[in-house]
């Protein structure tokens, strides 16, 4: 980082004064990057080559932790869970909030109330929501099975206790909690679209559907891209849900990589192995985000 600063400043010596002026303002941030935000990411990479239980001295084991992962069926199950979660949650958190935003963008009396209600779960803690939904999912006395049976005449499932339904249950609950957040982002994007565009389209004889596909979506595409990026990052972070509702079970069916990092590190004290998982997690986020940024040129429209 400092090398870069030097390189840039060769041609512009005058600005050194600016650097000295700026440093007092930036000291907390620099400490933050080195100690709490950037540095630890690199440190995780180094620790992933160690065997370390925080009691005995750390031991250099090379890529052993990664080899152990590759040969561990549980690791592959965790990766599978993680990508199932992302494969469902990301598309859903891009599309559902868009429809919600379109719905609450209408000029109707009391629409603000609906907006606030849809947003309500966002401000509450995942712990409270996790507890609440564990109760809703209760196979015998829970509200969900009761409503399924009494309204739709479908017999309910064992939700969180079944290996088949536990992960989908957590995905549904997480979506319920978070869609309001993306809705607000979309709503801001929708309200920033100049009304003239719609008027012009109207004069040219476009109907509502055509206006949506040819005006709303292209102008909204940078917002959709942003929502996509934050949804991917958010979906890799599933921890609280599993911690509160299932402890990763049953039979590891809700253990995702973030939860596995936590378990390996703070339940089993396998610091090296946990850091290896953390590095894989960082690598996945990095690769998917890079792919997203590469392909954005094809569909994101910057007006």
């Amino acid at each position: 980082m400092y090398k870069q600063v030097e390189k840039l400043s060769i041609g512009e010596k005058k600005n050194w004064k600016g650097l000295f002026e700026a440093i007092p303002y930036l000291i907390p941030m620099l400490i933050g990057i080195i100690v709490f935000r950037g540095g630890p990411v690199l440190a995780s990479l180094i620790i992933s080559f160690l065997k370390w239980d925080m009691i005995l001295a750390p031991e250099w084991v090379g890529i052993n932790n990664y080899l152990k992962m590759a040969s561990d069926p549980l690791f592959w199950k965790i990766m599978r869970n993680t990508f199932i979660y992302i494969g469902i949650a990301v598309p859903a958190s891009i599309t559902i909030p868009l429809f919600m935003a379109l719905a609450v963008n209408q000029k109707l009396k009391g629409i603000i109330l609906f907006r606030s209600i849809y947003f309500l779960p966002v401000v509450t803690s995942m712990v409270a929501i996790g507890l609440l939904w564990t109760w809703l999912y209760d196979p015998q006395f829970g509200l969900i099975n009761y409503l399924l049976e009494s309204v739709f005449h479908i017999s309910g499932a064992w939700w969180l206790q079944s290996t088949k339904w536990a992960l989908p249950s957590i995905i549904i609950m997480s979506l319920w909690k978070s869609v309001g957040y993306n809705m607000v982002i979309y709503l801001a994007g929708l309200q920033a679209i100049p009304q003239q565009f719609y008027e012009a389209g109207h004069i040219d004889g476009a109907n509502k559907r055509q206006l949506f596909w040819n005006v709303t979506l292209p102008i909204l595409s940078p917002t959709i891209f942003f929502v996509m990026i934050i949804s991917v990052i958010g979906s890799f972070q599933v921890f609280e849900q599993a911690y509160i509702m299932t402890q990763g079970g049953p039979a590891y069916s809700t253990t995702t990589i973030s939860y596995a990092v936590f378990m390996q590190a703070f339940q089993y004290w396998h610091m090296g192995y946990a850091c290896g998982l953390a590095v894989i997690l960082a690598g996945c986020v990095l690769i998917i985000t890079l792919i997203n940024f590469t392909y954005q040129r094809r569909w994101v429209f910057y007006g």
Partner: protein
Amino acid sequence: MRRINLDEVKKYWFKVFVRISQYTLLSFVGIIFVLPFIWMLLSSLKLPGEVMIYPPKWIPYPPVWSNYLKILELMPFSMFIVNSFKVAILSVIGEVFTCSLAAYAFARIKFPGREFLFLTLIMTMMFPGQVRIIPVFMIMKFLGWLDTHKPLIVPFWTAAAFGTFLIRQFFLSLPSELEDAARIDGCSRFGIYWKIFVPLSIPILVTLTVFSFITSWNDLLNPVVYLSSYRKMTLTVGLAYFRGQYSVKWELLMSGATLSVLPMLILYIVAQRYFVRAIVLSGLKG
């Protein structure tokens, strides 16, 4: 003449029909979001015997308000709330101050490597907390801060990316004539920041305050990792701990959940627009 009237009548009723279906749809979605909260409240007012029945009883009569007293006896809820407030307030004050300092340098001081440093800061936002928690845990252990509130507070005093970004955007929009005038009057750089920029950006500072307060209040990962003794626990980790102790006492768990949600609900109702604005601003410039 009659025909036109008939058309108008038709149009009117079509409009009414559209309105009714709009509200029906909005209300249906609204029920999905509200019903779980209502169920939480209703469950918290039931007797143990009323919770475990099928088909479930909707309205508890008479409401068992004593569940709330019971939970206050069973777990030191008031202590958890004090801890949560302490952690949230201290971390938010530090965050708003350090973020606005860094944002001022990024927005108003020209120095070599500025863009690179800003980009580095933004990049740190990309990694989930789990990627760095192990090395940070080791640092905290080295400092002897385990089982204290410091690990939940001090990292927020180091200008996190989101807040710095938010405030920088706002500072960039302030006219430069302001500081030119102040400088002519002999105002120092820090004076400009403290006496001009900070007072002018109160709305955005409040926005960051509300947003960060809610984030800190709701955090679970860090309290779970750093706090081990009962007396230090924040509300989220306390509630999770309580869940382990009384796993099927749903009427008590729901009163605990209701109590923990209540402060954020009040804050949300009072300061809704600030919280929403933080999200909006992050999205518009993202």
